[in-house]
């Protein structure tokens, strides 16, 4: 259907990974440099359809940047990203918006529209893109709010919600149009154990009942381990490990040992890169 899929320049790469036919998101040769810092260096990644894939890694390794590449908010310097068979870099604004209508995105800080009530926030994507009778909008919105347990809070304003509630409302808003791909950016940050469990359960339930593909960016391995089907670990611009969370938890490489064991020093150094310590303090041979 899409002529780009049959592009001969791509076909040999497709041949390289024949198993990628079932991938919802396919990334090839991604290279990104932001403010002189290399974020990604020739990265390949496939995200399986219908599964929960968690992307983990130390802070500042470009996990959110990867999500912004996938959704076309930020163009990569080099490489190709394909979402559901469409090359993100080649889309114009209208096509990009068409693509985004099928993606649900949960922001780290919920990003509810402060002017609108909870109900109107969830109804927003419907009102913007579909001409539906008020009755149907009401039913859809209340169903979604029910599924996150906040039907009773429909009339509240975002400023009246706790962090966990706001995130659940944002989740209801993200799923209101039945997306094919759900993206969660740090969904567990700043939640108390109860709210964390609620969000975890919701993500798992959504994936099982709606059959969506989920991409999850998080730090909390203990939480991720309970729901993810696949974990990818990024560090230093590369994917250093990937596999089922239980396999990674055994810590077979230095990276996984440090990250999942939570060790302070290791491949990810404790010290920010600096001059030689002794030299900086004036004890080195050259300074004497």
């Amino acid at each position: 259907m899409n002529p780009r899929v049959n592009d001969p320049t791509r076909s040999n790469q497709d041949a390289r990974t024949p198993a990628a036919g079932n991938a919802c998101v396919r990334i090839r040769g991604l290279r990104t440099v932001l403010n002189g810092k290399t974020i990604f260096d020739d990265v390949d990644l496939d995200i399986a359809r219908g599964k929960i894939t968690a992307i983990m890694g130390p802070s500042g390794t470009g996990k959110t940047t990867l999500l912004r590449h996938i959704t076309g908010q930020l163009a990569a310097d080099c490489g190709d990203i394909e979402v559901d068979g469409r090359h993100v870099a080649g889309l114009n604004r209208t096509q990009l918006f068409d693509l985004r209508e099928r993606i649900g995105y949960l922001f780290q800080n919920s990003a509810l529209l402060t002017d609108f009530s909870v109900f109107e926030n969830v109804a927003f994507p419907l009102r913007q893109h579909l001409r539906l009778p008020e009755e149907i909008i009401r039913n859809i919105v209340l169903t979604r709010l029910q599924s996150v347990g906040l039907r009773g809070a429909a009339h509240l304003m975002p400023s009246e919600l706790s962090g966990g509630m706001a995130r659940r409302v944002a989740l209801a808003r993200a799923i209101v149009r039945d997306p094919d791909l759900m993206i969660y950016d740090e969904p567990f940050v700043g939640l108390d154990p109860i709210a964390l469990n609620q969000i975890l359960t919701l993500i798992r339930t959504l994936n099982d009942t709606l059959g969506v593909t989920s991409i999850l960016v998080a730090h909390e391995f203990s939480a991720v381990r309970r729901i993810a089907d696949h974990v990818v670990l990024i560090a230093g611009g590369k994917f250093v490990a990937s596999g089922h969370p239980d396999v990674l938890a055994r810590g077979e490489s230095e990276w996984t040992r440090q990250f999942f064991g939570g060790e302070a020093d290791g491949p990810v150094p404790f010290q920010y890169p600096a001059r030689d310590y002794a030299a900086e303090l004036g004890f080195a041979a050259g300074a004497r």
Partner: protein
Amino acid sequence: MTQPRRSFQVGTGLFILLGFAALTYLATQTTSIANYQQGDSYALKAKFSNIGQLKVRAPVKLAGVRIGSVQSITLDPQTLSAIVMIGIDKRFAEIPDDSAAAIFTSGLLGDQYVGIQPGGSPDMFKDGDEVILTQSSMQLEDLIGKFLVGGDTAKQGDQAKTDGSE
């Protein structure tokens, strides 16, 4: 849930209405448009030897009350005097036909207007009549000149001279 949306729209509507009401008020009450809305009027003609700074649409007053406005100002090529056409509101139809017209200045620096001094004739002005008795604009320069020459009685007499008595 749709209630807040509606109240915004009603409030905005009221605001826009208020704005246009203010515009209409300013346009019709404070500008020259106010002078057009005099309804039916009848025309009178008056000749002056000098109209000073009198302008079209300047007010016409009787006893200080505005009764009409200047419609047009032209020059009579024969007598070389100014012909001023005056529109008077139909409501003020009872003006004796021997009334006099004079050009006055409101204040020392104010605008000039045509003042009507009522006469005593039993007949009233009709549409198209000419005001026979007219008094020209009082020129500040003339006035000062007369003061310098002296003769306060001469000043009075000269000022009261009538023009266009033919």
